[in-house]
């Protein structure tokens, strides 16, 4: 007699079933999976449009079974706003790294948040420019060694890291702003719940939403994947505290 098996976990159907180009242990894959799971669970496959950045996630459009477009470097929020204005019934999200969103795209993200148009931003904060070889990003921690700060980042030479979530939460436009971490099963569950609220903020037409995900870059941090997770907990989380910084009524 055949055994009856129930599903504990299976691949999301909006995931295109390809092997990603990401390095071993990179949490981009986790963030991708959470997006795919939520698109499935909220029944958004037919109306989702993803806007992909320049950076490691530049090939992200390849991995999902929904429509995607590729934005110019940093301009994903501007492009997403345009798509949302002309297609208000579609679910539009952008997926951006810290080099894309917090550096060249800083103006776009601040004004997109200030306009408060209902788009969703998934922001991956791994503290460097991963794709180009680990250069210093606006989110690189003080003292962190990168290829463009070989002696460690110093405030005199390089300024201070930018806390994007807190900064945008001061604006009146956004409906939901949170920072989550992808370092452990418990935090990944919390990350999914935060992303669900961010998706809800758009689906219910409440306003702009952003989820900042603390991520790892084992290759450029020159650590193993397990050590990278440890570094997120010990060094990154004290500077970038987790939490919800703005929750407008109706998002939950």
């Amino acid at each position, binding site marked *: 007699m055949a*055994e*009856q*098996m*129930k*599903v*504990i*976990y*299976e*691949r*999301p159907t909006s*995931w295109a079933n390809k*092997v*990603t180009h*990401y*390095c*071993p*242990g*990179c*949490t*981009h*894959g*986790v963030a991708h*999976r959470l997006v795919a799971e939520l698109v499935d669970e909220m029944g958004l496959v037919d109306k989702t449009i993803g806007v992909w950045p320049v950076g490691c996630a530049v090939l992200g459009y390849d991995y999902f079974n929904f429509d995607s477009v590729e934005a110019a470097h940093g301009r994903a929020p501007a492009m997403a706003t345009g798509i949302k204005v002309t297609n208000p019934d579609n679910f539009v999200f952008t997926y951006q790294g810290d080099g894309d969103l917090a550096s060249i795209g800083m103006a776009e993200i601040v004004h997109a948040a200030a306009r408060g148009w209902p788009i969703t931003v998934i922001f991956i904060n791994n503290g460097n420019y991963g794709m180009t070889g680990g250069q210093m990003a606006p989110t690189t921690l003080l003292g962190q060694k990168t290829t463009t700060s070989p002696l460690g980042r110093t405030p005199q030479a390089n300024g201070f890291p930018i806390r994007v979530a807190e900064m945008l939460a001061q604006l009146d436009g956004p409906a939901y702003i949170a920072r989550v971490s992808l370092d*452990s*099963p418990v935090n*990944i*569950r919390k990350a999914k719940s935060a992303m669900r609220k961010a998706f809800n903020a758009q689906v219910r037409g409440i306003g702009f939403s952003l989820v900042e995900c603390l991520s790892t870059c*084992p290759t450029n941090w020159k650590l*193993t*994947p*397990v050590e990278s*997770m440890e570094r997120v907990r010990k060094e990154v989380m004290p500077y970038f505290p987790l939490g919800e910084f703005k929750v407008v009524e109706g998002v939950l």
Partner: protein
Amino acid sequence: MERVSIDEQRCKSCGLCVSICPVKILIISDRLNARGFRPAQCTDQDKCTSCGSCALVCPDIAIELHREVKA
């Protein structure tokens, strides 16, 4: 059907599932997959508690989990 099914061709041998498994039944195997990584493997299917931690941390969506339905 296995409780823990790991798609060996997807696995990139990052070892996160091995580090996170509460019952320590996952190891990195000795063989190579087509991409040149040594995939994770489950040593004892019966010990799996279906907690889902390995599937949650896997960045390559290589792990699927099932469980027998109790009669």
